[in-house]
């Protein structure tokens, strides 16, 4: 795919809209479509709702969060975007049917600890990595 792009780029260089040539075009897209930028949303995982509090001692649940929103070019400056995501977003503008937009996904995850009984009434404190979204961004 990369080779094809390289070959085609000189011929289709005019297909890529340059922000300076089309001032405000992307801002208009934001406003018109009211798109929701990639950001972190609240998601609480409840051990109580799962009916697990007979063996989970603590916590009763935890804030796991999730990431949702669009990663449309130009990626907002406040957004945590990889260089690859910026390039993919540009390529998506050229070939929207073959290259998808960058994904809104966690960029930083942290651990959470769960204290629970096992079947023999021993108590276990376990750290589970990558369970809590600390930040979201475009990948």
């Amino acid at each position, binding site marked *: 795919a990369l080779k094809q792009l390289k070959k085609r780029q000189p011929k289709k260089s005019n297909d890529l809209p340059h922000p300076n040539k089309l001032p405000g075009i992307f801002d208009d897209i934001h406003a018109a479509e009211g798109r929701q930028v990639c950001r972190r949303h609240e998601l609480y995982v409840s051990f109580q709702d*799962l009916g*697990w509090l*007979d*063996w989970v*001692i*603590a*916590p009763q649940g935890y804030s796991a969060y999730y990431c*949702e929103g669009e990663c449309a070019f130009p990626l907002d400056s406040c957004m945590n975007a990889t260089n690859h995501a910026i390039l993919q977003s540009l390529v998506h503008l050229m070939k929207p049917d073959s290259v998808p937009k960058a994904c809104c996904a966690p960029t*930083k*995850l*942290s*651990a*959470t*600890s*769960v*204290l*629970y*009984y*096992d*079947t*023999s*009434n*021993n*108590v*276990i*404190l*376990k*750290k*589970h*990595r*990558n369970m*809590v979204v*600390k930040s979201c961004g475009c990948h």
Partner: protein
Amino acid sequence: SGSFHGNYLHTSSFLQRRLSGWEKREMQREILSILGLPGRPRPRPPPGAKLPSSAPLFMLDLYHAMASEEEDGRGSGDTDVAWGRGVSRPVLTSLSTQGPPLERVISHADMVMSFVNMVEHDRDLFYQEPYWKEFRFDLTQIPSGECVTAAEFRIYKMRSFTRHLNKTLHISVYEIVTEQSNRESDLFLLDLQTVQAGDEGWLVFDVTAASNHWLLNRKSHLGLRLYVEAEDGRSVDPGLAGLLGRQGPRSKQPFMVTFFRANQNPIRAPR
């Protein structure tokens, strides 16, 4: 804020189908698998479990210490952040100043497991010297793929039942390596503490070596044996020395804590 239509829940952003009972069970199984559990644990509360026992209390202190650190952001960090770094020693007091510092041990661990004492054998004043106490733990629940980073045996000491409270006592803990019917069992010294007869609090013994042996060969687990000696080498009944066993209050019963580090990520069954 969603509304139900038939089997579907409409929310502002997506259409969500109601899950069948089977699908819910499958989903719970998937979450348990992520937590590294083969199934839903079914603990049976022991008789008289209304009063909290020492091991869960200790673990809860440990949990709170780590949770507060995660909230502060010190231990939460990214995926590589060490667990519970800088955690202070939990509320349970210790007479011991020996052994690895708890915060260092925790920072290297992925899992901490406490084991209640299942069986206790005493050779007390009604028997010949030397006197001792034996303790056994159920290690069958340890998940595979874990290696021990540290293990502690914790036992509570009351003030000794003796007139000489400033008397020095040497308390030693051994791993029972082999049991012999016709002679004394083979023992391996794990840790030794020196205390005063009048001291009171939790004693912590390093039993990492024994835990490693037991984990490698779970069938060879024969337990721990504890001896108490006076300064002149005379054997002292552990009960008279103030060491509490299964007959003591629930919040002061002996237990073992083992710190594990996962060798690998848990392998989940494909859905």
